[in-house]
């Protein structure tokens, strides 16, 4: 089902009928979605529905076999990841992807695409969001707790003046209290950046999300406003098992 154009401002990110293979396996078989500017779009779906593959394809770590990805109207599919993210995309991968042998500070510095004053100016804002990172600035990232690693990973994507953040399952493996902290931090970031979020934790997804897209078997099967989904018990039960 092709997504209808959402009213309001034109979408920041547009994904159209994406097909991606991993090895010989046809993982994405037609994913389409749009991320509205200044909104949080959540990708929902069961395990193996293709959520992470969608994220990795958008950021260029996987090459789509067919379909289109446009960022601010510009086609970005087929470009290498290091060119794609330079258009203004921050990527927070599943499992954080932090550099464990580097210090927290080095993790942030390596994420700055150019160590410009502008990026440096963002540091205080980041430390205000995640005070723990400032405290452990000189510690090796591998010694951080799971929640702190997740914060570092998000901070790393936020250190550049990105217009879009791709965040893949930030709550995975974290204690509920930590998840609450994360939600609060992401709520605050929401006003400054567009977010595309993959989230299994429905409470977190519904707290943050404005729009949702439902994937099943590598296809977009449903989309709409998050508020509508919260009350659509039949749909939730069918695709999410909640």
């Amino acid at each position, binding site marked *: 089902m092709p997504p209808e154009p959402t009213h309001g401002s034109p979408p920041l990110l547009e994904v159209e009928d994406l097909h991606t293979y991993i090895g010989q396996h046809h993982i994405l078989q037609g994913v389409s979605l749009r991320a509205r500017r200044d909104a949080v779009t959540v990708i929902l779906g069961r395990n193996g529905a293709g959520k992470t593959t969608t994220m990795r394809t958008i950021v260029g770590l996987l090459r789509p076999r067919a379909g289109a990805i446009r960022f601010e109207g510009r086609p970005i599919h087929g470009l290498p990841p290091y060119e794609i993210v330079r258009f203004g995309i921050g990527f927070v991968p599943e499992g954080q992807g932090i*550099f464990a042998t580097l210090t927290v500070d080095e993790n942030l510095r390596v994420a700055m695409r150019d160590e410009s004053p502008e990026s440096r100016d963002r540091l205080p804002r980041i430390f205000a969001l995640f005070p723990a990172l400032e405290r452990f600035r000189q510690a090796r990232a591998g010694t951080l707790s799971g929640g702190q690693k997740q914060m570092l990973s998000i901070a790393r994507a936020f250190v550049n003046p990105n217009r879009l953040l791709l965040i893949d399952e930030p709550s995975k493996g974290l204690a509920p209290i930590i998840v609450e902290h994360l939600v609060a931090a992401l709520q605050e970031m929401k006003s400054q950046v567009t977010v595309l979020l993959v989230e299994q934790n429905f409470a977190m997804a519904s707290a943050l999300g404005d729009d949702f897209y439902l994937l099943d078997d590598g296809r977009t099967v449903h989309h709409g406003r998050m508020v509508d989904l919260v009350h659509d018990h039949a749909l939730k039960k069918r695709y999410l098992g909640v």
Partner: protein
Amino acid sequence: MRRAAPILAAAALFVLPLAFMDARTYVTLTVAGLAMGMLIFLVAAGLTLIFGLMDVLNFAHGAVFSWGAYVGFSVALLLNQRWGWATAPSVTLNVLLLAAAILAAMVVAVGLGILLERVIVRPVYGRHMFQILITLGATIVIEELIRMIWGPNDQVMPVPLTFQGSWDIADVIVLRFPVVAIVLGVLVYLGITLLLTRTRVGLIVRAGVENREMIQALGHNIYRYFTRVFAAGSALAALGGVMWAMFSQSVRPAMGGEQLIFAFIVVIIGGLGSVTGSLLGALIVGLSYNYVAFLVPKAAIGINMAIMVLILLLRPTGLFGSGK
């Protein structure tokens, strides 16, 4: 502390040979062992970084080492035949000769390295088997080119007068060239460490060694860094080649292949991707080789294999391996 324990145990093992020999022999052997270790380190450092960053096992590294040795040999020969820079009793001229030989070897190696990376390695990224096969094919070609240009036989490397002979320090005979090699090795290690920890390129390379995918997703073109690392690693191999040629006072077309095996053992001991691990592994190999060669000459080669197997048993990913 758990990390320090095996290192301390290893250090204790290196005092052990003292029980079987007099102190003067021990010092001589230790200097020779450290020098040998440092020279192997020069080869292993490039190998380990190239592997760590791009998962490329470069079998052609040894051939680059040989090329470096031969280029250095030609330069040294030329300078000595024309102006007698090696035989002249002048420290300045002697050092200049060494510097010129090293510089020429490194320049050629950088070119060779870039060529290898672009033409041979790049088309087969991510496919280990083809990488190994193709770099091996390149090794054959590069080594045969040496035989074609310089001839297949051993040749005598001119060694500058200053670095010949030995110093006699408190009745202990210390050969001069090994000391030069040790100093150079320490400088190179410090240089690499500073480069990796104090510069932005180093930061990106270290991060790339740990997670190649993520560094690209942060906007860094890893291939550009890899070409640089490949070129730098090749330059180090060439430096090792010149130094080894002077150390052994000869050049042979197959010298690189033999060094490569030492370097592999060192890289496995130290852990793939770790420069510090390589240094430690190289020193272990160099020292134990020299001690054992003195005590039980025939077991000298075996000791390195034994150490490698032992370390793999205790720490399958090597001393500083990440195990990724």
